[in-house]
């Protein structure tokens, strides 16, 4: 039986302008790819930030491998997490290899071959000795993603990872996500591209106005139509 890697129970984060995330319940098991979809401002990034301890919940429980997420979460828990949120963790004054080595050191990975593997997986060979400031946005994105996968994490959280990637990068990422899920990683990924998430996700979770409003079937339906119908129905229920 697959173990639960990420759990959110009634996770709520209130902002002065209203709820960022309201009573979110979500579990992700090992080997599972879960996609978060929703319109801009739906709360996808806030939910991911809560899961990563970047924001503290106003109420509710968040756990990674059964351990609560808070400022005292042990380093052994974080060592099992890889993520990409907002922007690549890339220092412009360092080369691609040096940037990857920075993450390797911070993650406490002794195996220096992990850098070579990441360079190969994300097709960064020709840029390996180039300073990050000279890279295109797409290649910086590749470096950031390579950092998320470098230490073979059990939980991978990616916020709109295909933004700025070219088609070959999107395909490579898709293959890598499938491979990591097959190897047992739990993956939470957000995207605006419904067709893209439908290709990789085992479950597609919909968010609207800070709440999880249900799941979409990843096969069979006309996703776009169903997506907007659900959003419209939820807005109507709320009277907005």
């Amino acid at each position, binding site marked *: 039986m697959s173990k639960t890697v990420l759990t959110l129970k009634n996770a709520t984060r209130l*902002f002065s302008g209203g709820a*960022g995330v309201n009573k979110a319940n979500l579990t992700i098991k090992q080997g599972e790819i879960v996609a978060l979809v929703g319109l801009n401002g739906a709360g996808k990034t806030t939910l991911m*930030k809560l899961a*990563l*301890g*970047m*924001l*503290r919940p106003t109420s509710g429980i968040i756990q990674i491998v059964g351990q609560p997420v808070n*400022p005292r979460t042990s*380093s*052994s828990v*974080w*060592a099992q*997490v890889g*993520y990409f*949120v*907002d*922007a*690549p*963790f*890339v*220092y*412009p*004054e*360092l080369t691609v290899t*040096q940037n990857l080595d*920075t*993450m390797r*050191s*911070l*993650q*406490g990975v002794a195996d220096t071959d992990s850098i070579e593997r990441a360079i190969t997986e994300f097709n960064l060979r020709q840029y390996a000795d180039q300073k990050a400031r000279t890279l295109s946005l797409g290649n910086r994105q590749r470096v*950031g993603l390579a*950092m998320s996968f470098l230490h073979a994490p059990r939980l991978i959280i990616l916020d709109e990872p295909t933004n700025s990637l070219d088609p070959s990068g999107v395909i490579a990422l898709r293959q890598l996500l499938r491979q990591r899920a097959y190897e047992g990683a739990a993956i939470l990924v957000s995207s605006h591209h419904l067709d893209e998430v439908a290709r990789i996700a085992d479950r597609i979770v919909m968010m609207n106005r800070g709440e999880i409003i249900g799941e979409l079937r990843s096969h069979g339906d006309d996703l776009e139509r169903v997506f907007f119908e659900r959003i419209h129905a939820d807005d109507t229920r709320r009277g907005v």
Partner: protein
Amino acid sequence: MKQAVLIESKKLIRSRVGMVASILLSIGVGSICALLMLGIRANNPDIIAQAGADAAFDWQTLLGMATQITATAGLLGFGVVLAWHFAREFSDRTIYGMFSLPVSRGKIAIAKIIAFLLWCVVMSIALPVIIGIVGLLVGLPSSIAPPVIEAFGRLCLLLLMTGVVALPVGIVAAKTRSLLGGVGAAICLVVLASVMVLTGVAGWFTPSAPALWAMNYAQSQSVSSLQLWLVLPYGVISVVLLVALWKYMELD
């Protein structure tokens, strides 16, 4: 922790800001001193008037000028570097990568402070060495009297203490998450330190104390040992606040 210190040191050394600040605070100050000494040697009345009535073509004058320039430029220079050191994580958006790591953010903040203080130590050695070279190049005697050696030591200590008194700039930069906020704080600190000198109680205003001590060492209005030792608790409190701010930060 060792890894975090190495990473932060590497980032500081390889950055343009770190490089430019190092050059300005060592070769820049050294060059200004060299030009002024050459002016004094050539009996340039304007430069002699600016350098003060006691100005002479000797080691004491050279070190006095270096100390005076460092007292003001050092606080600003160290402040700008410290502001960038913390604020760049927000402007480069690399702060997102500092969460959810096996190395806690508190440790990363400590590593940043250690890297900065190590850089201050390097600068506190580099500038006196450059001033020594400048002195020899402009033709000062190679035999150095004990008071001159003491003055070199004071310059070295002044640089170290200036690094410590600049630490609150890091707090402002981290709190405002902006380089401008940090640089603004550095300028405020320099202005406040100067104003406090005019009020006559600058010895008790810790950001002013090291400069006042180094510049007025031979005079009766010099700073007391107690006032100078206050730099230590001031630094510890700044470090504690900075680490706590970094540790409990949220990214909303």
